[in-house]
């Protein structure tokens, strides 16, 4: 019979316990997980990148609904446990109860609230979970908002940096003489403060909070020295204390935390505890590495194996983009200790090593932390460093005459050097995984967990891959957008949204472009990202568009252009055909061709004739077909129920409605649609970006087809009953693609990256989100759905398409 395991708290430690149990004994347990937060396990140490906008919540979820469903874990999220009945082995919440054979307490920690007046005012928050993070994101959306962060430790500074990135005016108040005094010495604290101040964050050290001011909501913070700071938001990040109330009430042994033995058992052998709520050997735990160790041991204990928890030293890094600091071990001054210090003020680099009895016992580094893991290895191993003392501070590259190549430095690391601090994975484990067949970063993450938590060691893991596999390993596809930046397309898109960058100069300045005005590769991409994300604010830049979109016609190899009028759903009539024939004759068009998208192409038109031929076609009611655009091209249809004896729905009518709704929208790459009236599929809808196949009972919507460089059948987005819903889903899908894909990725390429499941969740399942996508699409259309031909019927536009001057008639002197 299965044993019942009840878990209180879905945090990083308990998530890891579940994984270990499932890996070793998937059938032995019936697991029920309670969580006071209405969500499952996510990577709490990644809240800072969520706050700063560098990651989304979805990206930091470690266990999603599928995971729990797949492993038959009963989730009772949003249901807080209020009592543990040890006698009957049952836990109670406000709404129900659950019996257990074994109970795991993983209640984590609660933020410490300074007992000052005003601490309960709306607008005073802590920084522990996704709700807090969301509250900060919401607060930062007010223009010119002011925030005060109380506490200049790890958490407080990550909050401050995130709020500043989101545009708030941020002040950090810190009780001690320098920032992060538990991890940094005063010199490194000073460099950190200088860096933060350069980012516009005010730092007030030796500041003791006297009161939080405000009437109905927070308005400011008053310090003991009578300094006052205005604030629309106050974030308290002064520390945490283990959340022990449940354990206390159940009369388990509790000191500062819930007391556990080496096997993570509490004073009741059927109850275990892991994470920030426990106290082991008089020690509390806040960083993730020891929590993962605890999880491993707790799982072993539950499975009846022998294991003992031995806390190891941990190193600290601050997750603020662009701030590079590292600290490990003990770096306080003492009689028998010596320092080695290296400073490079111009580069803002500071390194300090603390040595006792020829052993390295502490290291603090700021500005250049590349050698951190090597120093950390020396500290943990207690290596005798007397032989390399003279060059020690320069790192492993200077030991034994190896080169300064970072790859060589990684290659020189011993197998027991720690690579991933969060998960305690050493180089040997990674090398073993590689020898066992792992060849990509994803393989390593899956097999060893290295770089799967905070991600700061990703570069190191890649270097281990490179040094082990040699030429067989290609450094990953984190391809920068172009030579003007080191950021990827995905980075840039995210930062444009997160930092509210609304013009090209703003993007280039804030994201540190290396060229004066971009290049022919990044400018069209930026132009699209900006107009897609900020339709109301951004001014489309014709000079950043490729020639076809600037001139609204396809350039041909001889410098002439092609002109394609729109034929809605492929339908036309004698009047339109006559106008096209007349125009072809009038401008002596050398080629007339029927296209694959059910319309007519006039090939070989000279640039100066374009505005004139457009004006003539406009007269007959024809508008631009955008046959040149990264935008909606055509909606191909069959004749459907109008004429066809097999047609099941009005495919032509639906095609026309879709084309009329979508035309003029700019997209990351071209978008082609088709609607077939029955499964015989005469409109070839199953290889289109969006293809709809009508059936008796409704509409099958496929997305992500391709019939160009790649050949690919569409994947089923959804089947719907009504035409209106088919249109809604198509519009929402196109908008999701506009907002998220990288420039020049067709929908099928984008879909392969984000996955159909995610797209379905956004477009099909989440109705509110679908409506919001449609609303944003319609807003953009209200600005961008304009016929470029009509816009260029003016004498000024016609002159712009002609040569600036004609010197062929000028007489020679």
């Amino acid at each position, binding site marked *: 019979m299965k044993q019942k395991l009840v878990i209180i708290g879905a945090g990083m430690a308990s998530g890891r316990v579940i994984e270990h149990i499932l890996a070793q004994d998937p059938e032995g347990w019936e697991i029920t997980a309670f969580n006071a937060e209405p969500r499952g396990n996510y990577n709490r140490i990644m809240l800072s990148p969520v706050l700063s906008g560098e990651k989304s919540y979805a990206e930091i979820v470690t266990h999603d609904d599928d995971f729990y469903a797949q492993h038959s874990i009963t989730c009772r999220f949003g249901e807080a446990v209020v009592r543990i009945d040890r006698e009957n082995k049952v836990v109670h919440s406000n709404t129900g109860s659950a019996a257990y054979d074994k109970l795991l307490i993983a209640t984590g920690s609660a933020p410490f609230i300074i007992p000052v007046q005003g601490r309960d005012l709306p607008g005073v928050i802590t920084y522990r979970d996704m709700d807090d993070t969301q509250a900060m994101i919401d607060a930062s959306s007010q223009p010119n908002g002011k925030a005060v962060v109380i506490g200049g430790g790890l958490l407080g500074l990550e909050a401050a940096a995130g709020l500043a990135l989101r545009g708030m005016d941020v002040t950090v108040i810190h009780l001690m003489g320098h920032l992060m005094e538990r991890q940094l010495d005063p010199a490194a604290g000073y460099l950190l403060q200088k860096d933060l101040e350069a980012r516009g964050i005010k730092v007030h050290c030796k500041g003791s909070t006297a009161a939080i001011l405000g009437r109905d909501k927070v308005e400011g913070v008053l310090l003991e020295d009578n300094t006052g700071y205005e604030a629309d938001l106050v974030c308290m990040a002064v520390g945490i204390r283990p959340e022990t109330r449940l354990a206390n009430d159940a009369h388990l042994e509790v000191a500062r935390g819930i007391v556990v033995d080496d096997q993570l058992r509490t004073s009741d052998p059927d109850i275990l505890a892991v994470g920030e709520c426990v106290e082991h050997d008089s020690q509390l735990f806040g960083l993730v590495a020891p929590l993962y160790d605890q999880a491993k041991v707790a799982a072993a204990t539950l499975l009846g194996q022998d294991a003992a928890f031995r806390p190891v030293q941990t190193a600290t890094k601050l997750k603020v983009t662009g701030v590079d600091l590292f600290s490990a071990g003990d770096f306080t001054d003492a009689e028998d200790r010596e320092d080695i210090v290296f400073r490079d003020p111009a580069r803002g680099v500071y390194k300090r090593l603390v040595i006792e009895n020829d052993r390295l016992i502490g290291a603090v580094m700021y500005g250049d932390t590349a050698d951190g893991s090597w120093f950390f290895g020396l500290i943990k191993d207690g290596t005798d460093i007397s032989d390399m003392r003279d060059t020690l501070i320069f790192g492993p590259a200077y030991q034994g005459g190896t080169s300064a190549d970072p790859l060589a430095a990684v290659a020189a690391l011993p197998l027991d050097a720690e690579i991933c601090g969060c998960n305690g994975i050493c180089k040997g484990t990674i090398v073993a995984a590689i020898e066992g067949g792992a060849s990509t970063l994803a393989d390593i993450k899956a097999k060893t967990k290295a770089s799967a938590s905070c991600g700061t060691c990703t570069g190191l893991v890649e270097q281990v891959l490179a040094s082990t596999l040699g030429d067989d390993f290609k450094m990953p596809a984190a391809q920068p957008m172009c030579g003007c930046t080191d950021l990827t397309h995905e980075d840039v898109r995210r930062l444009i949204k997160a930092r509210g960058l609304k013009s090209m100069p703003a993007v280039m300045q804030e994201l540190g472009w290396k*060229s004066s005005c971009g*290049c*022919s590769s990044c400018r069209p991409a930026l132009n699209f990202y900006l107009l897609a994300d900020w339709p109301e604010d951004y001014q489309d830049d014709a*000079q950043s568009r490729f020639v076809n979109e600037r001139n609204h016609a396809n350039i041909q190899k001889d410098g002439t252009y092609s002109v394609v009028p729109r034929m809605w759903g492929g339908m036309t009539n004698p009047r339109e055909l006559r106008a096209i024939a007349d125009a072809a004759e009038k401008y002596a068009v050398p080629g007339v061709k029927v296209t694959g998208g059910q319309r007519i192409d006039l090939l070989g038109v000279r640039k100066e004739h374009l505005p004139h031929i457009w004006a003539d076609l406009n007269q007959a009611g024809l508008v631009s077909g955008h046959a040149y655009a990264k935008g909606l091209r055509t909606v191909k249809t069959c004749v459907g129920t109008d004429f066809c004896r097999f047609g099941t729905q009005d495919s032509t009518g639906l095609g026309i409605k879709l084309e009329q709704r979508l035309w003029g929208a700019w997209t990351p790459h071209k978008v082609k649609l088709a609607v077939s009236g029955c499964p015989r599929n005469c409109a070839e809808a199953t290889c289109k970006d969006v293809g709809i196949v009508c059936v008796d009972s409704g509409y099958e919507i496929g997305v992500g087809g391709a019939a160009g460089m790649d050949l690919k059948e569409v994947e089923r987005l959804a089947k719907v009953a009504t035409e209106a819903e088919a249109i809604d889903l198509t519009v929402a899908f196109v908008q999701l693609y506009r907002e998220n894909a990288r420039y020049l990725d067709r929908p099928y390429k984008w879909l392969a990256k984000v996955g159909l499941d995610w797209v379905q969740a956004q477009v099909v399942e989440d109705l509110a989100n679908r409506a919001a996508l449609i609303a944003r699409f319609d807003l953009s259309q209200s600005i961008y759905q304009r016929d470029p031909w009509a816009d260029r019927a003016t004498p000024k536009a016609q002159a712009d398409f002609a040569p600036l001057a004609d*010197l*062929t008639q*000028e007489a020679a*002197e």
Partner: protein
Amino acid sequence: MSWIDIGALDDIPQRGARVVKTLHGCVAVFRTHDDQVFAIDDRCPHKGGPLSEGIVHGHSVTCPLHGMVIGLTDGLAKGADEGAVATYPARVEKGRILLDAARLIRGRAA
């Protein structure tokens, strides 16, 4: 040199170009982000693409047909590509663009 007025600086958008027709082909006149003007042959040395339709970045233009990058100051292909186009003296005076008429009207050989 005899300078000839071919139009106003504002007739060309920043980071854009217009063409001037001459007896021996079109000359592309560029206006860069810093309001300097450059005149070069409007034929890419690669496959004859109209350089005037390329995207202008810094003091370079990327040919719209196959992406060769040409320096506006010297007419030379950048990067690994080889090739060159003729350049012509050009300057701006009181908001007007002036080209060297002698070379444009009489031809390159003169």
